[in-house]
Each structure stands twice: as structure tokens, then as C-alpha cells.
């Protein structure tokens, strides 16, 4: 089961020195956060989709420092739980800049979000719609539709979203209940190869919205195009402007007064975080070098299981390459970071670097074996900020 991910052997002198210094000063495992990368990606995405308001999907990396970065850039926030609204409240982000996008909620969850100041919520069925009867004078709902997305790494339409054909009846029911459905949303899935699914979804949703608006005076004028903007896991280079060009064109055909929003998570934060982990021990088993790291699939590399991601790796050492396996620190045999890759000979204390590790990494880690979390280091201030 060979691992096809990019593995870089060696590093330029200054890069090598930086990783060694950080590991020396702060210990490993570390997650190194470079705020300037989020800024670059946020600006690039806004430039690529100038008509779209961005709501950062907090779930991708719910770290205070990241929230502060997005806040300073003027971005909004997409939350899915009371824990996430609490995080924003703690950082004094106004609720008005936040939308709640989990399609299924407890009443308490709705009330917490309303108290925080959220007035935009997502639903995808009539049962969820009815939960808003008591709050109808306060909220505007977005109805999530699903389009199956076989090309995406993670198909987000399996679990949530109604069929387009169900939309008119749900909107009609909302009208009877006095609840305003102000628009539609869709999620094409994450890590899309191209934007064709976005374009198709925009066209289908907008066509239906225009049709319903012609029949109904409670207008729908919000279109939430979700996320799906890719991270550069295969190191081929993602040009976000090129990726977004077809989306931009499709959005250009919509009425100018519509509010177009997106929920980017992965694209904004993936490249901003780099993992530094150390080799703790080694073994040769059946002729293959095994290296045991201090971070793994139950920790920062959890996204390799839950998110089906495969992060580009780098070792600083150079030399003849051997078949190698990188394993995580827990007792479980599923805790393997890279199955069969070619690496120079490593010894205890050598560093293994993981790139593109901002999204759905620390967010989904566990406390299995009571191992400590990787510390979260802000590169600009050289401070631990977790």
C-alpha cells in the first residue's frame, strides 16, 4: 500500500534552522501558525470572488488566533455549535457577523445563538423549520439543498440537504408558519478538483429562486455557495483565481441585489499551519524502517482519518532512501501517519514536518492515551497561543 503523497527530503539552510530552533525552544509536537498565509489566502479568495461575502468556517480550525486574524480582515464567521459561538463571544466578535449553519439543532442551541446575536440559520427539512416558529420574528433562514458530488473527496450532500424538488413545499410551509426563508445554500463537498459542481449548483439554485420569487412576495435573495475551495495537498499549486473564474462568471449573471455568501474553511487555513513532530523511537520490522513520532493519527494527523486528507511531508535529513513507515505515538496500530514512503535513515530526535496542516487537523484530534496536544505556536510573535 504505497503512499503517493509528496515527500520532500532535506530543506534549505534557513528553513532547516527555523524548524530546529522552534523545536528546540518550544518542544514537539508543535503546530506552527503563520498568520500572513491566512491573510494572503483571504485576500486572494476575495479578489477571485469580489461579489461574495466570506464567512470563515470556524470548525476548520477553532483557534483564537485564527479568529482574530479573520476578524481583523473584516471577515464573517460560520458557526455550527454553541461552543463556537462562545469562542467568538469571548473574542468580542459581534454576532451580527455570524451565521449558524448546522442544519440540525437543539432548541437550546438556537437560543444560545440568538442571544449571541445570530439571526441567520440553516435548515434542510420541515421538522427543523418548525423549531423556529417561536423565533419567527427574529430570524431569516437559509434552506440547504443537496447535489450529490461524486468528484469531491468528502461528499457533504449525503448527510444534509434537501432535494431541489422539495424546496417549493418547504418554502410554502414556511410561509404558512410566518417564517422567512431568505435563500438557498449548497455544499459541493470539500477539496474539489474544479468548480464545475459549484457552477451547476449556482445555476440550479438561482433558477429556482427566481421562479419562486416570481410567485411569492417573501423574496429569497441570499445564495450561500458553501465551501469546497481546495488546499494544495498534492503540491501542484492551487491558483484560486483560476479555480474561481467559472464561479465568478456564474455569479455575474445573478441579480445585483442578491447577497452572495461563502463559507471557506480549508482554503483559508490549511497552508497556514505546519506540524513539527520528532522521531521518538525506531525499529526495523520485516526489512522496513519504522519511525515512531510524537504526533499521529489520534492527534494533529487525525484529518487523515476523518477528513481523508493526505498531508505533504518533509524530513530535514538527506541521504540514501529506504522504505519507511511513520507511526504515531499511541498504542493503536491504526495510528500510522505514512504507510510506505522512501526516507533517509532517521534517528530519535530528528524532525518530521507536515505541511498544509491547518484545516480539520487539531480540530478533530482526540485525547487517546492521554497524550498531550501539539502546542499551537504563533510564528509572528513566537508565542504559544493554544
Amino acid at each position: 500500500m504505497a503512499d503517493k503523497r509528496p515527500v520532500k527530503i532535506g530543506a534549505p539552510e534557513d528553513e532547516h534552522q527555523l524548524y530546529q530552533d522552534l523545536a528546540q525552544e518550544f518542544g514537539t509536537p508543535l503546530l506552527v501558525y503563520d498568520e500572513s498565509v491566512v491573510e494572503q489566502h483571504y485576500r486572494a479568495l476575495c479578489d477571485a470572488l469580489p461579489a461574495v461575502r466570506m464567512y470563515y468556517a470556524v470548525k476548520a480550525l477553532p483557534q483564537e488566533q485564527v479568529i482574530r486574524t479573520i476578524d481583523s480582515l473584516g471577515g464573517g464567521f460560520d458557526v455550527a455549535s454553541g461552543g463556537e459561538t462562545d469562542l467568538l463571544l469571548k473574542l468580542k466578535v459581534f454576532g451580527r457577523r455570524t451565521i449558524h449553519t448546522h442544519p440540525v439543532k437543539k432548541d437550546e442551541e438556537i437560543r444560545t445563538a440568538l442571544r449571541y446575536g445570530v439571526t441567520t440559520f440553516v435548515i434542510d427539512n420541515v421538522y427543523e423549520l418548525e423549531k423556529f416558529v417561536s423565533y419567527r420574528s427574529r430570524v431569516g433562514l437559509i434552506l440547504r439543498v443537496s447535489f450529490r458530488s461524486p468528484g469531491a473527496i468528502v461528499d457533504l450532500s449525503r448527510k444534509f440537504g434537501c432535494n431541489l424538488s422539495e424546496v417549493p413545499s418547504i418554502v410554502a410551509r414556511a410561509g404558512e408558519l410566518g417564517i422567512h426563508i431568505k435563500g438557498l445554500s449548497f455544499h459541493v463537498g470539500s477539496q474539489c478538483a474544479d468548480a464545475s459542481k459549484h457552477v451547476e449548483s449556482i445555476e440550479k439554485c438561482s433558477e429556482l429562486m427566481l421562479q419562486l420569487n416570481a410567485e411569492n412576495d417573501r423574496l429569497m435573495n441570499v445564495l450561500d455557495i458553501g465551501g469546497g475551495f481546495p488546499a494544495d495537498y498534492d503540491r501542484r499549486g492551487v491558483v484560486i483565481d483560476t479555480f474561481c473564474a467559472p464561479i465568478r462568471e456564474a455569479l455575474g449573471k445573478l441579480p445585483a441585489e442578491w447577497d452572495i455568501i461563502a463559507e471557506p474553511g480549508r482554503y483559508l487555513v490549511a497552508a497556514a499551519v505546519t506540524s513539527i513532530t520528532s522521531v521518538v523511537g525506531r525499529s526495523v520490522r520485516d526489512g522496513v524502517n519504522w519511525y515512531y513520532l510524537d504526533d499521529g493519527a489520534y492527534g494533529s494527523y487525525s484529518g487523515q482519518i476523518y477528513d481523508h486528507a493526505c498531508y505533504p511531508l518533509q524530513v530535514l535529513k538527506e541521504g540514501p532512501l529506504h522504505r519507511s513507515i511513520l507511526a504515531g505515538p499511541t498504542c493503536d496500530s491504526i495510528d500510522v501517519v505514512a504507510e510506505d514512503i522512501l526516507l533517509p535513515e532517521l534517528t530519535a530526535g530528528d524532525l518530521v514536518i507536515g505541511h498544509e496542516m491547518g484545516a480539520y487537523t487539531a480540530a478533530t484530534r482526540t485525547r487517546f492515551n492521554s497524550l498531550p496536544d501539539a502546542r499551537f505556536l504563533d510564528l509572528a510573535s513566537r508565542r504559544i497561543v493554544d
Partner: protein
Amino acid sequence: MKQFEETLYDAVNQQFRIDKLYFENKTEHQHLMIFHNAQLGRVMTLDGVVQTTEADEFIYHEMMTHVPVLAHGNAKRVLIIGGGDGGILREACRHNIDHVTQVEIDEAVVDMAKEYLPNHSAGAFDDPRLNLVIDDGMAFVKSCQESFDVIIVDSTDPIGPGEVLFTEDFYAQAKRCLAPEGVMVTQNGVPFFQPDELKNTHERLRQHFTDAGFYCAPIPTYYGGFMSLGWATDNCDLRQVSVDELQGRLGQVGMTCRYYNPEIHVASFALPQYMRQIIGTGR
């Protein structure tokens, strides 16, 4: 320049310029902000919703206090639930009462209001007639063995720590603490935007009081037209007190007001037709 954006409704909202931020924190119970605005003076918000401003607080506090106290005519013991900014307390202390108990759930609101909104309480927190209790209003009325002539419920909105103060159970327990001829008044939202609140409160109060209704006052920063103030008593004469009688009682207290006068008092019980329709007494 930072803006405060109120977060009550999705499709409309009011924004205030924050000219100077005095205080912002999440207290034990809620998110509290106090800031200065050039037009409104000091503004206090809880959970993103305007609670009071120096410019228009007199309308709310005078109407919440003087209407029940002067309608009663011989109120000696007053109970305030909520009202941590001290505005109701200030107005209540102007009357010839013997005692006032105030029950506020969030001590931080009292502390911050004393420091940053001193004009609201104007020293009333030091009045010897006051018994200030930091407790949940529901817990207090449940265990209360005292009796009050007037109960004033100065709560936040039904979403948040004030939620329990809108329940039928609370109204029932509060009635236990109310003298037989007494009256309870409640903050009840802006019916133009919050019709359900008016309807629900009416239905709940009706279960426990012979006269369960509302009177009105327009408070500019609770935008949306009239605010409804709940009126609950078993003494149906209290809403009928004449302008002349009220004038006499006001004269005995010897106070001047900025919004309240006997004519406004009587007129405030006239409900616009849309409110009557919401509570099902439309004709």
C-alpha cells in the same frame, strides 16, 4: 470607529456609533457593554440588545414605576425584579414608600451601572429603605414570605437569563408575594416586532389575575413603536383611577417628571388596534 449593531431581528437592525467604550465583558450570566454615543449619552447593552440609554431612559423608568405606584395610591412596599441599572429604583425611591427590595441576578450589572451609569441610580443604591438581593428572580419569589404592594419586573428579553420571568410559573409565584390589592407590571417587548411575546404574556397572566392587560410607552431606542408593559392585578379599579385623583397623588409626592403626567397615565392604557388583535380582544 466601531459600531454597535443590535441583533434582535434578521431583516432590520439599529446601529449606534461607539464614541467611547467604557466596558465590555461576558459576565457570569450575559454579555455586557457600556459605551458612549454622542446623541444618546451612555448606552448599556446586554447580549447585543440595547437595555437603556441616558437620553431616553426616563420614559421607560417613569412609566414602569409611577403608573403602578400612583395607581395603587398607598404603596408602601415595592419589589423590583431585575433592573440592575438602578433606574427603576431611583424612581421608586422618590415615592413615600417604607421599603423596596430589588432582586438582580447579575451582580456585575449593578457594579458596572454604579460605576459607568451613575445617573441611572443617582445614589439610590445607598437608600436605607433598600434591600438589594443578588439572586434569580424566580428563586426569590418562590421562597419569598413577604408581601409587596407593587411588583415591577424590569427584565431582559425572553431569550437569555430573563426567560424564566416570562413563564406562567413565575407569574403564579410572584402573585403569592403580591398584596391582595397590589399590582405587578412587566417589561413586555415591542409588539410591532414581537407579537408572540404580547400574546403569550397575555395568556399566561390571564390564568392568575382578574385584570391582565397592558399599557404602552414609546421608547425611542426600543424601536418599533410602542413598548407594551404588562399590567396584572386582581383590583380592577386600579386602571380606572381618574386624572384628577392621580393629579392629587402626584402633588402629594411633590415630584416633577419628564414623561409621566396623569393624562399620559390614563391614556397609556388605550391599546392600538393591532395590539388588541394580537391578544384577541380586537373589535
